[in-house]
């Protein structure tokens, strides 16, 4: 049985999901055989299905949240999702919080046209003011937060259409 490991949370999409085959080492990193790493593995809350597990894996001090599940099952789910809507990449871009904090200012309003990299809002956390910018050009479809809102990682902030 092969296992698929997929990054979640703040690192979702950083690297492609990896399928680990019990028959030998997976590919992806040629130097895998020579390196030693400090690794911690902790269980996170249960995933969306009983078959999947959510793990926190810390490698050399880097912290990741991953979902691990049987590859066969993951592939089936992907197929179903593809069949539902092959809309592609032109859909709305949801800008979500990657740090928790408080919204200090919001620079855009719904209906406004923004360019890629344009400032959307400023989040303050731990003494720092972090400017968050549009991932691509488009029209602001929705602003889900206001000045003073407290946000957690993953909260929807702005939709760019």
């Amino acid at each position, binding site marked *: 049985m092969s296992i698929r490991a997929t990054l*979640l949370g703040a690192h979702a999409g950083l*690297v492609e999901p*990896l399928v680990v085959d019990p028959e030998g080492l997976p590919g992806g990193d040629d130097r895998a055989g020579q390196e030693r790493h400090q690794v911690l593995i902790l269980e996170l809350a249960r995933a969306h299905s009983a078959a999947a597990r959510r793990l926190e894996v810390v490698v050399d*001090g880097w*912290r990741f949240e991953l979902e691990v*599940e049987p590859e066969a099952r993951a592939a089936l789910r992907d197929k179903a999702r593809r069949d539902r809507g092959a809309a592609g990449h032109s859909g709305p871009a949801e800008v979500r919080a990657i740090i928790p904090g408080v919204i200090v200012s919001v620079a855009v309003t719904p209906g406004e046209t923004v360019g890629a990299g344009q400032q959307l809002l400023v989040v303050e956390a731990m003494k720092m003011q972090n400017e968050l910018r549009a991932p691509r050009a488009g029209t602001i479809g929705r602003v889900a937060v206001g000045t003073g809102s407290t946000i957690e990682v993953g909260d929807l902030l702005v939709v760019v259409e």
Partner: protein
Amino acid sequence: MATSRSEASAVKPSLRKDSPGPPFGRLLIANRGEIAVRIIRACRELGVETVAIYSDADARAAHVRLADSAIRVGPAAPADSYLRIDTIVDAAVRAGAEAIHPGYGFLAERAAFAAAVEAAGIAFVGPSAAVIDALGDKLHARRTARAVGVDAVPGTLDPAPIDRPDQVAGIVAEAERIGFPLLVKAAAGGGGRGMRRVATAAELPAALAAGSHEAASAFGDGAVYLEREIAPARHVEVQLLGDSTGRVVAIGERDCSLQRRHQKLVEEAPAPGLTRTERAELHDLAVRVAAAAGLQNAATAEFLRAPDGRFYFLEVNTRLQVEHGVTELVSGIDIVREQLFLAAGQPLSEAVLDAAARAAEPASHSIEVRISAEDPGRDFAPTPGEVRRWSMPSGPGVRVDTALEAGERVPPEYDNLIAKVMVHARDRDAAIDRLRRALDETEIAGIQTTLPFHRFVARAASFRAGDLSTGWVGEHWDGAAEVARAARTAQRTAGLAVLAAGRGAGPDGGMLAGPVADAPAGRPAGVPASGPGGRQRGDGAARDGAWRQAGLADAVDRWPR
């Protein structure tokens, strides 16, 4: 005069015949986190009773648990708690505290706080309000340095007249004389606020206006001045102690060149590569400026070292520094302990004078790394949250100053420094080896920290070669590449752990054995049920990836430490 806790009178330290006795009976610590714990430790060893203050976010924090008593000063927001001068002085009066130690950050360099403490008849553990006020103005500090023949970084000595359009030509001419690129800096500044880099004369007027505006909103003072950019430069600072007789000594210097956004990441003592003569000369420069300013208690004079080896005075920090520990390890001086005796009016101790006499010939080496709740893979963005695993290193030559434990939350309201890992060894090479070992022992889960960056530093050839500059992080650290590499290892490790668990093998058996994953504390994941067939990879790409590139580019510290 010391009033130990009644229930703990048995553990009151026995004082030697020649010991001066506790400097104070009771002391309030106007801070939180690791530095509050550090100060409590010094007090405990001296038999000084401690009073902690806390906000609602810290009701169960370590500094509250360790102090003899604790007083709530307000809700979580710093402006409503740890920055409330009236509330804190009132708490000290009610608690019967004879002294207040401000730590670093928060109110440590607010002259108004020192003045309020002094006015309440309480000893302020630090320089006087007048000295804090004078040296807090960087232009005043630069003029003080010039008056005693110490070269400050070339630049102006008076505020730029930015409100006078008729004087723009004059400022530009002065900038041409200083030379480009230069920096616009805030007179009241710190931590990079109000600072602008200017490469050409044409950019100067806009930079002056923007820097002044930022300085005004950050410090309530929009005065800015010009300073030549020295690059590459090393940041070297001198630890100073002074007493009420006006005597000031240097007990060693630190190199703090590894910074990002003007915040220090790694500090070491002594500064590598200095000759005995250079070291003595640097200490002398620092003592001259501090003595001229009337410094008492503890402070640090900061310098830049240009590529030609010359030192240029930057500023004086009138407080205990975050990185004081490396100097303690090399000098053998407990700086907080000495601060308390100095605040009680004692002269510089024999131990300090002895350390000062040896300061130009340090006999060992110490390195500190700041473990912060920041993501070094995303431009050091803040990462508050709950710490699930927290195992700090120990063993020979390792000191860890922290206030955090597993299961606790790093609150988003405060500084992101959560632990200082210090190593001490006979020389710099041995200290780096020890640092690498100590960081390999460090286990943190639940939040991302700067640990991977520090592991990188401990292995970097240029760091070992002493090839340091304030541009080092930008030149050597590619956080995005490092995290991507680690992500692939994490996926592989997680998959293998699940497979190993599925066939009944633990983390030490089956596929986890061997070089792929050295997982001393790893726990095997559960056994997943098998599912139906198919094949296609997931679609989770790039949603946050765009953020990673686009966002977080302009993070600025709101109040520097």
